[in-house]
């Protein structure tokens, strides 16, 4: 942990004094390490060590029975040059990333903001209503009924009653519609941790700021949101961004539950589904790790991008 430079200016240009300086800084901040220690001790054992141990697996061939065999970059070569299904998965993952990611992110904020303008009891009720998909069990059954491919499927029944279609649409097996349905459901479950953080953040904004704003000439809700609410929400915006990035890049579960595995022509196959396929169906852990590793790199890029976008509102 000592590789990071301390803020203090080193007294000499020699490495030795810089090192001493850091050491002194560390001593001075003993209480900070004390407060971090319990969390980081458990975090290191159960998260960091397993993650570090799993990083090299992508460069091996590993079937979970024999000891991993080092194969260099061959997993990555196969992945990019030969694996056609991976390219479909990549395309679908990017679709989720650029569609459900930003839409759900904006929805988290806008819905939290709308809820915040209601009275206290209504606020609690609506927060529950919108967070309900994150608490409810067996949420996929209802979507299967909705988009069932026969005339009994609710959506088909309605559309046929209204005379919009003549024969039922195979929502979950026709490649024309599958991705659309999955994106819809993905959006529907996306008001999770980021959304609750926004709700909590809005609660912490000082009311006197709104009064001051009114005196300064703010006329309507929209101006209030743009000039007072949004700038106060930097930390929550960043938190929600990380949550929505993780959720949209690792999408795949919804597709698996609704359109089956593997889906027709891999229409809803994502990178995460691909990793699941190789990891838990074929037991090619090395290859699955390489897939996950690429996904990790993509998420880091997305995270840095969103930090740049939000840089106006965050100070670190």
């Amino acid at each position, binding site marked *: 942990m000592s590789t990071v430079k301390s803020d203090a200016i080193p007294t000499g240009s020699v490495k030795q004094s810089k090192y001493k300086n850091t050491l002194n800084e560390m001593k001075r901040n003993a209480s900070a390490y004390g407060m971090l220690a319990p969390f980081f001790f458990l975090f290191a054992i159960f998260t960091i060590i397993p*993650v570090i141990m799993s990083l090299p697996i992508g460069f091996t061939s590993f079937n*979970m029975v024999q000891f991993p065999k080092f194969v260099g970059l061959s997993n990555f070569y196969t992945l990019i040059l030969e694996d056609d299904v991976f390219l479909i998965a990549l395309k679908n993952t990017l679709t989720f990333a650029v569609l459900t990611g930003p839409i759900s992110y904006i929805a988290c904020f806008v819905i939290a903001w709308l809820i915040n303008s209601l009275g206290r009891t209504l606020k609690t009720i609506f927060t529950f209503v919108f967070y309900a998909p994150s608490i*409810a069990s067996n949420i996929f059954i209802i979507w299967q009924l909705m988009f069932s491919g026969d005339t009994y499927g609710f959506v088909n029944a309605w559309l046929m009653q209204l005379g919009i279609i003549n024969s039922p649409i195979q929502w979950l097996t026709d490649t024309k519609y599958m991705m659309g349905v999955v994106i819809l459901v993905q959006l529907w479950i996306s008001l999770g941790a980021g959304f609750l953080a926004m709700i909590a953040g809005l609660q912490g904004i000082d009311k006197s700021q709104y009064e001051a704003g009114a005196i300064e000439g703010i006329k309507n*809700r929209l101006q209030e949101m743009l000039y007072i609410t949004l700038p106060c929400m930097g930390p929550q915006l960043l938190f929600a961004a990380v949550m929505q990035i993780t959720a949209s890049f690792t999408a795949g579960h919804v597709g698996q539950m609704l359109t089956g595995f593997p889906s027709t022509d891999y229409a809803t196959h994502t990178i995460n589904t691909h990793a699941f396929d190789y990891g838990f169906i074929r037991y090619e852990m090395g290859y699955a790790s390489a897939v996950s590793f690429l996904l990790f790199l993509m998420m880091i890029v997305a995270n840095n991008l969103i930090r740049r976008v939000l840089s106006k509102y965050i100070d670190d």
Partner: protein
Amino acid sequence: MKLIRRKKRISGSLGGDIFIFLVLGFLGIFMIFPFYFSVIQSIKPINELFIFPPKLYAMDPTADNFVELFRAAGNLWVPFSRYVFNSVSVSVIVTVTHVFIGSSAAYALAKIKFPGSKFANSLIVLSLLFTSNVTGIMTYIVMAKMGMIDTYFALVLPFIATPMGLFLMRQFMGQIPESLIEAARIDGAGHFRTCWQIVMPNVKPAWLTMIIFAFQGAWAITAQQFIYKEALKTLPTVVQQITAAGLARAGLGFAGGVVMMIPPLVAFLVAQGNIMETMSHSGIKE
């Protein structure tokens, strides 16, 4: 110039409020639907469960599924109360410890500059972005080496130091002005006291939200890959076992789902109600 309506809000009209209510209400119907449907399914008698297309209400509501669930639960090899005890104690221990050590660490990361603080901060975010299907195996190896398989430790320790709660708290604590902390420090409070007596009361919505996440996660702990002894298993595992007996127990499945939803739901409503009560103290936030 418009007069300031101090009572409730400064900008925005009553008409706007009603419009917002209607929009949220309309969207809300879609959001709450599966919740509603699960409850309805759980009070349907077995013959109604298989009507197709399914009805959105119960023609002849019954508590049979719940009675049957508890009867089945009373006939287990290990007494049912044991599973309840396991789940309740695990959830409480994980939630309390998580909030306690997570908040302390969040304070250090948000409010103290020390060698390594940047590194520790980015470690938290990176770990949130990292997903792999091999980490599970590696965690198993680590735990096996420490002799934790099939012990209470395996139900609790791996789930305490989860990065999401820490990241949430760090973000909220960052908003507390430096001046408030300096004032406390000048008055002689150490970092630990400053964190718990000055900062924590000012980020109440944050730790209440942290409790919601932590409890919801902890209540779902099964630790299936670490626990093989029947007496150490938790409620989600056993409810799954009871209800996994196929179509004949479909009603039980819905009843089990509803019963399992109750504790996180109560935790959510209590915490959220308290969040809504928080009034930010004038002049605290920058």
